[in-house]
């Protein structure tokens, strides 16, 4: 598996971004990004703080409307669509700062996520399955706002899974987790990837090594390099941007 994976190689891309640019005032947080992800592919996004990864996620999920460029999800142009509309097309996201319903119980959080346009029986089945899968059954009745940070991350991942998306975006899923929790998260991501496409933003290199096949490196709003995990981590340019030097 050492051959470079060229973007757009899968027969039918799941998501395809072309020339996506996001300017805030005079600053381009994302500048002309072309990005393609295949069906059931797992991609890691890395890059220093401020490289534009989270902004790119916000554009993919409709939380920000790009200044330029187009995004297609299969055959649908989703550029500038409302977040709820994109979510209904099958995109789920765990955001960097946990977005959960603090005043509701763990069970209610997952129930609300699972229950959109499904029968009650089906919803209940999804909720039970998701809670079991993530080991949250024991705290199902607890208020999410009173849980530890790591647990809240898991609740958020549970809500994302419960909405049964086809593409899952995870923004720093391992942040603030214990060593043990990080391992469980990596195992979970590999398991999800058997049936779903994922894009994962992370800074934790050992974690990246645990899950990644292909890695895309962002720097200053652009894609610096996109290659297999081994080559990317051996790339001197990648080291330079992480150490704060300017890439050539």
């Amino acid at each position, binding site marked *: 598996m050492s051959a470079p994976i060229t973007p757009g190689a899968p027969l039918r891309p799941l998501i395809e971004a072309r020339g996506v640019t996001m300017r805030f005032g005079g600053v381009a947080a994302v500048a002309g990004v072309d990005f393609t992800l295949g069906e059931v592919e797992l991609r890691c996004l890395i890059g220093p703080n401020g490289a534009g990864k989270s902004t790119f996620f916000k554009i993919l999920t409709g939380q920000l409307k790009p200044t330029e460029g187009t995004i297609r999800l299969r055959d649908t142009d989703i550029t500038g669509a409302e977040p*709820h509309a994109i979510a209904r097309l099958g995109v789920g996201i765990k955001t960097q700062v946990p*977005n959960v319903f603090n*005043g509701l119980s763990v069970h209610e959080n997952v129930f609300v996520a699972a229950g959109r346009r499904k029968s009650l029986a089906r919803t209940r089945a999804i909720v039970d399955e998701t809670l079991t899968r993530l080991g949250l*059954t024991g*705290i199902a*009745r*607890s208020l999410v706002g009173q849980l530890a940070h790591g647990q809240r991350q898991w609740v958020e991942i549970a*809500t994302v899974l419960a909405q049964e998306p086809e593409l899952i975006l995870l923004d720093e899923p391992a942040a603030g987790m214990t060593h043990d929790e990080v391992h469980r998260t990596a195992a979970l991501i590999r398991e999800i990837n058997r049936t779903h496409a994922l894009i994962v933003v992370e800074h934790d290199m050992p974690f990246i090594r645990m899950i990644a096949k292909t890695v895309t490196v962002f720097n200053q709003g652009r894609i610096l390099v996109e290659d297999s995990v081994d080559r990317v981590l051996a790339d001197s340019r990648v080291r330079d941007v992480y150490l704060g030097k300017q890439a050539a």
Partner: protein
Amino acid sequence: MTPSRPSPAVGLSLLGFLATLALGLAILFGAPRTLDTFGLVQCTGFAALAMFGLSQGFVWGFAGVMSFGQAAFLGLGGYAYAVSVINLGDSTLPVLIAIVVPMLFAGLLGYFMFYGRISDAYIGVITLTVSVILFQLVNATSGSQYRIGAAELGGFNGIPAIPALNLPGHPDEPLDNDGLWYAAMGALVLAYVLLRAVLASRFGRVVVAIRENETRAQLIGYDPRLYKLLAFMIAAGVAGLAGCLYANWGGFISPTVFGLSMSAQVIIYVLVGGLGTLVGPMLGAVLIQWLIIAAGSQTVVDSNLGLGLVLVGFVLLVPQGLVPVVRGLLLRLIERRTPSRPAPEAGGALATERAR
């Protein structure tokens, strides 16, 4: 996997519902047997205003919509009933009109507010402004040229001699004092049960979820604008029904129902009773109205002064309101009586840690 045990709060919530329902029914059938006519008529007014409190408690406490002009819907409901019953005679359709007109108005206003994505503070200001301007508008309808069918709007004098409710099809037999009591209190109990059902439904859970975190609700695929709009319209319908009962209670309605102090009073009901409960705003309404009447017999101090002090005092000192405070005390009492069981949240989290 061990089945999760419901926390005391969940059990208490169901208990609270049943207790409130039982209390409501007991008052409904008990009051005519124990009170004199004057007391019963006074309680009919309390029921109408408790319904108004219910509407504010739902939209503000559960949907998180800062409607500071709920009096607009109370007034629209009252005037819609008065105008249509004067024209139609039979009161059945006018009651529906009193519910539907405020809902449609809320739909129009809410569309601009929620689909414009304006901030919570702006929603408060706009709703308040709308009620003030409706007040000014209705206040300026003096003269016989301002009439809808047979009903003269009457400007600041309002509409007198509004026909009372009647049994469907019998417009010549208006309800007496007992009948109006049963109608008002029965409607209040029914509205409470219906709103509890709405909150327990999937729609209600999403409404509360959006209050908790609008971004997450969107990212799951719900359109917060639509849910807020619907919740706003439901609350407007309840307020409209309250306005209909209020007009029936006095047989009279005037622009003061649209006034700022009406919107302020209902905010105070909710704040005193407890934001985030349905029973709190109803109790708050009765308590505050009773205090206003009790204070009304003296002429030294204006009642607005007392209301203002209550509002400032609760915001500063008891922002959660009375019902949640009492409920918290009850919960602590229950937990102390069952010491073997750890606190629900901490216990659940610990159990999971051990399971790992």
